[in-house]
């Protein structure tokens, strides 16, 4: 299996979210960047399949500027075989998807894997857009990914339940919860060998920018929590009914 895995470079999940430049930009001061949590699951699953004896070559790709190389190196340390960075500051999801579709065309990949969504702008768009650019089938938010002979068995959440799917290569899939159990943590050997693995830098192709984030807002501060005594739970019921009007 030759897999192209799309690695997002996102702020750590515990990051304090702040904005700068008149709230037009995310404030990156003191922010730690990580491999997106869904991509961690996706890569882990591919590595599990490889460890179980299937021939597998994993190329990690990121669309980003030089700063994101540290994140790509993390993916290499986890076990990806090589990495590609498309040298651009991504403007929107379609731009990212277009770049990845282009790399797919020039390689011989069986499958493109992304995360279900990036945890900064929560789009969940890249997988579907790559599929549309390449006219490949897509599976969104898969919770299972198993090799069965020359086919892949997957599960996809659908409205009101889930769908069990069987796919032949090639296709595009985004990994949701359940894709792998626990994300792998790179070991010392992985970190050492990652430095020697190939990380190729490619210039972007053109793609018109269709959306633009113009301003950010933080949620309104909540009033302090109203405390109710554990010996007076009736008071909580009364507040929920009369004050909050939710029951």
């Amino acid at each position, binding site marked *: 299996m030759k897999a192209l895995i799309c690695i997002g470079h996102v702020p750590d999940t515990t990051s304090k979210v702040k904005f700068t430049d008149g709230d037009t930009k995310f404030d990156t001061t003191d922010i730690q960047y990580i491999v997106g949590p869904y991509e961690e699951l996706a890569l882990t699953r591919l590595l599990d399949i490889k460890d179980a004896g299937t021939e597998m070559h994993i190329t990690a790709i990121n669309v980003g500027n030089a700063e994101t190389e540290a994140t790509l190196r993390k993916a290499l340390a986890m076990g990806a075989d090589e990495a590609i960075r498309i040298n651009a500051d991504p403007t929107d999801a379609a731009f990212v998807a277009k770049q990845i579709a282009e790399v797919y065309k020039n390689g011989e990949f069986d499958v493109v894997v992304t995360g279900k969504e990036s945890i900064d702008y929560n789009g969940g768009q890249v997988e579907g857009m790559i599929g549309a650019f390449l006219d490949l089938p897509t599976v969104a938010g898969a919770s299972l990914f198993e090799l069965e002979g020359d086919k892949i068995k997957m599960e996809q959440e659908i409205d009101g339940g889930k769908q069990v799917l069987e796919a032949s290569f090639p296709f595009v899939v985004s990994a949701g919860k359940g894709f792998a159990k626990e994300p792998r943590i790179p070991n010392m050997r992985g970190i050492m060998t990652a430095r020697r693995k190939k990380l190729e830098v490619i210039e972007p192709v053109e793609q018109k*920018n269709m*959306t633009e984030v113009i301003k950010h807002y933080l949620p309104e501060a909540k*009033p302090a929590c109203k405390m109710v005594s554990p010996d007076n739970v009736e008071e909580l019921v009364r507040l929920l009914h009369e004050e909050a009007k939710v029951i």
Partner: protein
Amino acid sequence: MAVLIYTENFDGKFKKSSYELVSYGVEIAKQEGTEAIAVTIGNVDESALKELGNYGAKKVIKVGNDELKDFSAKAYTAVIEQVAKNIGANVILFGNNPSGRAIAPRLSVKLNAGLVAGAVAIPSSLAPFTVRKRAFSGKAFADVVVNSDTKVVTLSQNSYKIVEAKEDISIEDFTAEIPEGAYAVKPIEVVKSTGKLSVTDADILVSAGRGLKAAENWGMIEEMAEIMGAGISCSRPVSDLGWRGHDEHVGQTGKVVAPNLYIAVGISGAVQHLAGVNSSKIMVCINTDADAPFFEAADYGIIGDAFDVVPKLNEALKKFYAEG
């Protein structure tokens, strides 16, 4: 120009979220001076289709091809693309639910349209088309401008209220062309989550965390949900430990929910948990630890032992609901 609203049906029935979406689409159409048209795929009775008219849709297009029985992102996108072109839609709306999330990005590329995923409000301006959306997993919002002529938007659940506006709705049948290879990824089985209220549909969620210590202690949580007609959710460790199913896990890496009332029992309130629930209208925290971070996010709190507080609260709730 027209606003096209994808309303998915569940065995021929629509859910509350579809009515929210229709109300949202009707408002955009009104502002644009165009028509709001719904589209649905599958076999739906006339009476159910007519209900979409109660929220102001003027027309519903029913795509009844038998081949479309099973969901496929590729097939469904092709269908919506044909319908959108046919009616000259310039705004196409989806719910931010599994089918919407699967179709909208594909469609946006096909139609050369910009996409806003997870909108939380009506566009603040139509030219330039500006919509506010959820960002940073609920820790922030972002205003997004769409530059393309055609726009695709997915609407977050519970972020637009249902508005009744009776219209005499017309029903139109549409037979779509299904592209080759649309079912190359072959559906082999559908597992329906029947019976229980899904976490994303519930108006009230009773949620519990590792503080409950073991799977067998969920009886009192189930009882509370039963009394309130609520859904049940849980924190990640609870589903990782196998105490509850993965479909109940909410948070950054689980489901994102926005009920009217979220009751958190024995959940510490880690940022990754709050990321999935902080759009709830009202949050209640029951926890033994006065310093649990959840109290900072909650509207109401009880510092106490769940094994003492929950049974008492259940009694009080029973009394409240019995008295009406």
